[in-house]
């Protein structure tokens, strides 16, 4: 039985530097449908349009064509901060997802109020702290005793784990992970991926995860898409995905993308 459609991208076009010699078509009529509970990994070479796709969904700018429908609502022209009510986001740069000059608990309190009207009520109530402590202890990073520490003093891995918590806090309709482990050392990256898996499974979130690591792309999620020149060229799911190997993927890529295989091979593997 198919789950309900959670995200529908139709004919998304995004051009950068339109009308100049540097014009680049980053998304070229992109179509994508995600069902509720899908955990999709996204791979592709540099400039394939992976991050641009996530930005089109999150609303960093207006798309030049196409529609973004999230859980039945057309959000194509909604400003970024309003879309954030439905979206959880973790960025590649660990500095990006948290406010460094604010305490851990203040960051969590901001996330717990995402999409709610801001008032003159206290920015954080005492009763919230117990909940935050419990959430943090589940990460297993020892952050539960450091609620009032400035986030700027945390390591990249800790910040990404915290950003994940914040992204998942308000049960987003869609979680967007933009190479969120790429800036971490391998051991920390593995830990953050493990936390990612756990949060997505426990809360049954729908997620899009960009990664440069093909093994990760195969090992995680129930569906894998590969992008090339602003479109999706490979889309595998279920059992077929589980059986994939890195070699399979490279073969599929070279067939689908034609002659540019050798250029992108290094980037992909």
């Amino acid at each position, binding site marked *: 039985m198919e789950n309900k459609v959670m995200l529908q991208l139709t004919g998304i076009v995004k051009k950068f530097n339109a009308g100049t010699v540097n014009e680049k078509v980053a998304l070229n009529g992109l179509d994508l449908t995600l069902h509720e509970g899908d955990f999709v990994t996204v791979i592709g070479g540099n400039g394939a349009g992976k991050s641009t796709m996530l930005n089109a969904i*999150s609303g960093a700018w207006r798309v030049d064509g196409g529609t973004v429908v999230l859980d039945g609502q057309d959000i194509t022209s909604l400003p*970024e901060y309003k879309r954030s*009510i439905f979206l959880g986001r973790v960025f590649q740069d660990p500095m990006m997802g948290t*406010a460094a000059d604010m305490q851990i608990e203040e960051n969590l309190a*901001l996330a717990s109020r995402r999409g709610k009207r801001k008032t003159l009520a*206290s*920015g954080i109530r005492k009763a919230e702290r117990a909940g935050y402590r419990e959430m943090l202890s589940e990460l297993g990073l020892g952050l539960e005793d450091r609620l009032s520490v400035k986030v700027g003093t945390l390591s990249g891995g800790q910040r990404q784990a915290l950003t994940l918590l914040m992204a998942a806090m308000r049960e987003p309709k869609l979680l967007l992970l933009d190479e969120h482990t790429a800036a971490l050392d391998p051991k920390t990256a593995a830990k953050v991926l493990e936390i990612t898996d756990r949060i997505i499974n426990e809360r049954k979130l729908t997620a899009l995860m960009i990664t440069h690591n093909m093994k990760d792309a195969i090992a995680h999620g129930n569906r894998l898409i590969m992008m090339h020149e602003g479109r999706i060229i490979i889309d595998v799911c279920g059992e077929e995905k589980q059986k994939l190997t890195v070699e399979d993927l490279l073969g599929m890529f070279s067939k689908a993308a034609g002659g540019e295989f050798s250029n992108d091979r290094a980037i992909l593997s």
Partner: protein
Amino acid sequence: MGNFLGSMPGAVAQGLIWGIMAVGVYITFRILDIADLTVDGSVCTGAAVCAVLVINGVNVWVAMLAALAAGIVAGCVTWFFHVVLGIPAILAGILTQLMLWSANLKIMGGANVAVSARQFEGIVFTQMDVGGSLIWLAVTAAVIIGALYLFFGTEIGCAIRATGCNGVMSRAQGINTNVMKLLGLALSNGIVALAGAVLCQYQGFSDINMGKGAIVTGLASVIIGEAVVRKIGKNFALKLAGVFAGSVIYWIVYQTVVFLKLDTDLLKMLSALLVALFLGVPYLKKQLGMKSSRGGAANGK
């Protein structure tokens, strides 16, 4: 020496008045991460509005509220230039500052307006009663510190702080960063104009030049204050108190320069150099630190 010590209460009073202004600068510079040059104009706007209303028989407290409101409007104009028209923050502030120059002349009907405490009843702050003024100034400072401490602990206050700290994160957390910048700029300039209103009472006149270099004086106070309270603690109220302390120290230094019969014309030069030094040192430290550590660890895009 008695003369020098005798001038100290006055210096402290000046310091507290300019400390109010410096708190406004702190809000934009440290919390919103915007260097807002509007303040050079909005100091005088607050003074002009207050002075003109008082000489027309309006209650002093009402006149001060009106000055606050005028400052808020000035902040909104800078916001409009910066956020709606996309003009860089520094230039947006300079444009408003220039507009205010004309506006201030029109409000005052000339280059200055006298509001002597001898002529007008109800003037709260005056250098004719430094002791009484000091008490009122201490109360004013305490109220401002307390109010801002509470405000920046609210949901709106936290959202403003997050906006200044990380705009991308703020929008990802559903915060309308444009609105938060508006609130921050309006609040900051409101407070700066209030400082102008207090200053015009204290010195007995409002003058078109009174805000010249206010941004630098304010930044110097913020920086001195940070150096003073850094060792004591990190509490936000303490930081605000530090801004007042920084401003008082600045004016004590000023009095000392006057007493030693040094050239006060050079004071603005020294202030500017001080600010440049303190803003430059962290940057230079970082540059030197980068060279000595491995350079490749930066996690770029």
